[in-house]
C-alpha cells in the first residue's frame, strides 16, 4: 500500500510537470487555424471579433482563434523566449518598444517588408494606406517587422452640454483658451481638472503637440531626430513648458485637488461636471464607459491642443494642428505556422471597411491609417470629434531613432528626471511657475549637452 502511494505521488508530480505542455491544438475540423494573441486594451476586443468574423466569411477554409488578455505582453514575451512553435500565435501584439527591438535582435519576428508592397484593395499598396509618420517606429535596420496597430488622439476633452448651455466656443489658440478659462471661472465652475498624481497629468502628449505645432513639421521632426543638444533649445519647447505652467500653477483655473488625482479620479470629477475641461485622449470614453452609465445626460467632445500663436499658425505661418498618437505593433513571429495567411489578415485589417469597423467598435479610436470616410455622424459626439481631429490634425508618434533614445538614456523631457509637470505644479505661484519653466529649458539643454554634444 505504501509503495502504491509513493508511486502515485511520483506519477502526480510528473503529471504536474508535463500537464502544462500538453495543451496542444487538438480540435480539428479541417480548417486552417489562424491564431491571434493580442493585448486586450481598455477599448475591448469586439473590433477584432468582428474583423475575424468578416475574415472567416471571405476565407471559408480558415478559422480565426482569438486570445485576448490584459497581460498579453508578458505572455507573448515568455512564449517567444521559450520558442515552442505550438504555442506561438500567428499574429502577436507588442506594446513595449524595447521588447520589440529585443525580439528582432533575437530573430523572433518575421521580416514583413514585402507586406508593405502588397496590395490592400483597389490597387493601393499597404505603404500607401499607412500614415508615414507612423512607419518609422516599426522600421528597424531598414526592414519592417510589424505594422502600426492603434492611433489615438490626444488633447482636451470638454463638457459639451455645459459649453452649449453657456455658449462657450471651443478654443483654437492658447489666447482663446485662457480667455475661455476666465469665462468659465466667472460662472463659478472650475475650468480644468487634471491628474497631477499620476503620469505627469497627461500633459506630456499635449506638450509635444504644442511644441510641434509651434515649430512646424520640419523643425518638429528635427527635434525628434535628437541629433544634437541644440534641438532642446527650440523655442517651442519653452513655450510648451510655459503653457503647462500657466495652467497647473494657476489655482484659479484648476479644480482644487487636481495635484493629487489619479487619472480615474480626475475623469470622474470631469464627468460629474465639477470641471469643464480635462487633458486626455480618445480612450476616455471607453475607459469610463461604466461610470458614464450613471450620467446619461452627460455629453463630451474633444479638441486638439490649441495653437500657441494668436493667429493659430505655426512659426512659419502655416496652418497646423497637431495630435500626438499611440503606436503599438502587430507582428508575425518567425516561428508562426501560417505566416502567409497572417499577412493576408493584416492586409484585410487595413481595408477601409475594417478600418471603419475598428473606429465604430472602439467608440472612436482611429488606427494610424488613411481614412477615406469623413462623415462619422454615426458615432457619439465624442467619437465624432475624435475622428474630426484625426482627419484634420497632423498626427505624430513621439519616437526617435537615436541609439541613445532606444537604449533609454535620453528622452524628450530630461530635467527633473522627466517629471516636469510635477516640478511645475509644485510652484507656489504663477510667477514662480513661469520662471521654473525657463529653468527646465536650461537644465534640459545642459543634460542634453552631456549626452548628445553640440
Amino acid at each position: 500500500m505504501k509503495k502504491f502511494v509513493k508511486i502515485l505521488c511520483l506519477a502526480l508530480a510528473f503529471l504536474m510537470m508535463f500537464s502544462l505542455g500538453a495543451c496542444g491544438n487538438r480540435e480539428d475540423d479541417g480548417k486552417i487555424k489562424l491564431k491571434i494573441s493580442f493585448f486586450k486594451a481598455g477599448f475591448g476586443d469586439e473590433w477584432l471579433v468582428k474583423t475575424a468574423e468578416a475574415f472567416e466569411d471571405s476565407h471559408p477554409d480558415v478559422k480565426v482563434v482569438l486570445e485576448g488578455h490584459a497581460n498579453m505582453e508578458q505572455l507573448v514575451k515568455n512564449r517567444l523566449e521559450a520558442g515552442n512553435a505550438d504555442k506561438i500565435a500567428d499574429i502577436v501584439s507588442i506594446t513595449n518598444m524595447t521588447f520589440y527591438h529585443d525580439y528582432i535582435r533575437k530573430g523572433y519576428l518575421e521580416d514583413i517588408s514585402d507586406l508593405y508592397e502588397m496590395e490592400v484593395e483597389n490597387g493601393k499598396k499597404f505603404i500607401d494606406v499607412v500614415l508615414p509618420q507612423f512607419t518609422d517606429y516599426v522600421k528597424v535596420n531598414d526592414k519592417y517587422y510589424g505594422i502600426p496597430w492603434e492611433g489615438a488622439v490626444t488633447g482636451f476633452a470638454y463638457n459639451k452640454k455645459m459649453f452649449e448651455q453657456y455658449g462657450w466656443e471651443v478654443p483654437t489658440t492658447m489666447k482663446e483658451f485662457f480667455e475661455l478659462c476666465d469665462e468659465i471661472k466667472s460662472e463659478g465652475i472650475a475650468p480644468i481638472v487634471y491628474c497631477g498624481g499620476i503620469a505627469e497629468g497627461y500633459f506630456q502628449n499635449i506638450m509635444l503637440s504644442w511644441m510641434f505645432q509651434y515649430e512646424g513639421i520640419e523643425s518638429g521632426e528635427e527635434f525628434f531626430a535628437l541629433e544634437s543638444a541644440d534641438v532642446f533649445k527650440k523655442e517651442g519647447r519653452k513655450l510648451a513648458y510655459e503653457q503647462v505652467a500657466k495652467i497647473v500653477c494657476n489655482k484659479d483655473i484648476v479644480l482644487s485637488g487636481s495635484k493629487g488625482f489619479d487619472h480615474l479620479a480626475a475623469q470622474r470629477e470631469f464627468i460629474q461636471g465639477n470641471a469643464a475641461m480635462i487633458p486626455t485622449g480618445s480612450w476616455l470614453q471607453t475607459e469610463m464607459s461604466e461610470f458614464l452609465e450613471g450620467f446619461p445626460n452627460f455629453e463630451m467632445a474633444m479638441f486638439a491642443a490649441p495653437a500657441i500663436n494668436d493667429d493659430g499658425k505655426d512659426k512659419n505661418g502655416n496652418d497646423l494642428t497637431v495630435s500626438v498618437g499611440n503606436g503599438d505593433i502587430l507582428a508575425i513571429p518567425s516561428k508562426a505556422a501560417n505566416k502567409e495567411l497572417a499577412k493576408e489578415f493584416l492586409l484585410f485589417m487595413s481595408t477601409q471597411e475594417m478600418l471603419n469597423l475598428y473606429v465604430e467598435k472602439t467608440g472612436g479610436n482611429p488606427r494610424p491609417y488613411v481614412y477615406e470616410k469623413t462623415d462619422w455622424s454615426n458615432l457619439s459626439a465624442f467619437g465624432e470629434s475624435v475622428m474630426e481631429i484625426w482627419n484634420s490634425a497632423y498626427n505624430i508618434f513621439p519616437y526617435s531613432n537615436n541609439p541613445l533614445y532606444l537604449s533609454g538614456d535620453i528622452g524628450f523631457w530630461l530635467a527633473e528626471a522627466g517629471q516636469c509637470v510635477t516640478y511645475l505644479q509644485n510652484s507656489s505661484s504663477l510667477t514662480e511657475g513661469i520662471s521654473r519653466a525657463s529653468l527646465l529649458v536650461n537644465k534640459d539643454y545642459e543634460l542634453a549637452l552631456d549626452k548628445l554634444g553640440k
Partner: protein
Amino acid sequence: MKEKVKHTLSTPSGDKLWKGDKIFIVLMIAIPMLHFALFTLYVNFDSFIMAFQDVDYTAEVNTLKWVGLDNFKKFFTEWGENDLWMRAVINSFGYLPVTVCVMLPLSIFAGYFLYRKIPLSGLYKILFFLPSIISIVVLAIVFRNMFDASIGPINWILENIFKMSKDDIPNWLVDEKYAMWILYLYAIWAGIGYNVVLLFGAMTRVPTEVIESGRLDGVGIFREMFQIFVPIIWPTVSTMIIFGVTTIFTQYIHPMVLTSGNGKTYTIAYLIISKVNQGRLYYSAALGIMLIVIALPMIEFTKWLTGKIYDTVET
C-alpha cells in the same frame, strides 16, 4: 532535563530504508534542486554577465556588445543628473529606523500586553492580525482611499471638524513633504500585526516558572519586559531586525502600490524595477550587482551584531 531526539535513517515506524525509498527521495529533492539551479543560479549568473553587456543600437543589425564598466558608470552619471537616486537611497534607509526603532518596540509592547491578557486582548489580537491576512494590494487601496482628496475620511475630518480650507490640506501621497512619511506610516500599519503575532507566539513559549519566580522577587513590569522577555525571545527579535535591514534593499511594493514613485517616494529596489520596466535590462543588471555588493556585508554585519547583544538564552 532535556530530552534528546535521536535521528536515524529510518521511517517513523522503525523500518529500514529500502532502495525504492532512496530513489523516491532523490527524485523529490531533484525537483527543487533543478528549480534552484535554473531560477537562482542560472539567473544570477546570467545577470552577472548582463551587467557588462548592452545592446548596440548603432550597429546595422542590433547586437549585443561588451561594454566593460559602462553600465556601472551610467549609475554615477544618473546620480549626478537629478536627485532621484539620492532620494531613493535616503527613502530606503529610512525604512531601517522605521522598522527597527519604531515598529519593533511597538510590536514588543503590543505583544507583551496581549500576553498579559489586558481586557479585550482577544479582540486586539484579531484587530492586529487582520491587516496581515489581507492582500497587501487591497490594503494599499484602502489606505490610499483614507488619504484621498475627494473621498478620504482624513481630509473630511480636517475640513469639517478642524475647519481647514480645502486648499490648505496637502495632497498627502503626492506632496514631496508628506508622501514618504505616509509610506512609512503604511509600513508600520500594515506590518505591525504580523510582528505582534510572531512576538506574542514567542512570548507564550517563555516558561512560566521564570516569570513567576521573577514576580516573587518583586520584578516590575518594565524589568520583566526588558530583562526576562526580550532576552528569551531575542532570536525572534533579532530575526526581525535582520528583516528590517533587508527591507532597505528589497522594499518596492509600498511605493509601487501607493504612489508609483510620485512625490519622490522611489526606493532603491523600486527604482531598479522601473528601469527594468523601461526595458533597460543590462543597466538594471549592473544596478543589481552594485546592490548586492552593498547589501550582503550590511546584512552579515547585522547578523553578527544581533548575535553579540544577548547570548542565546537556554531555557
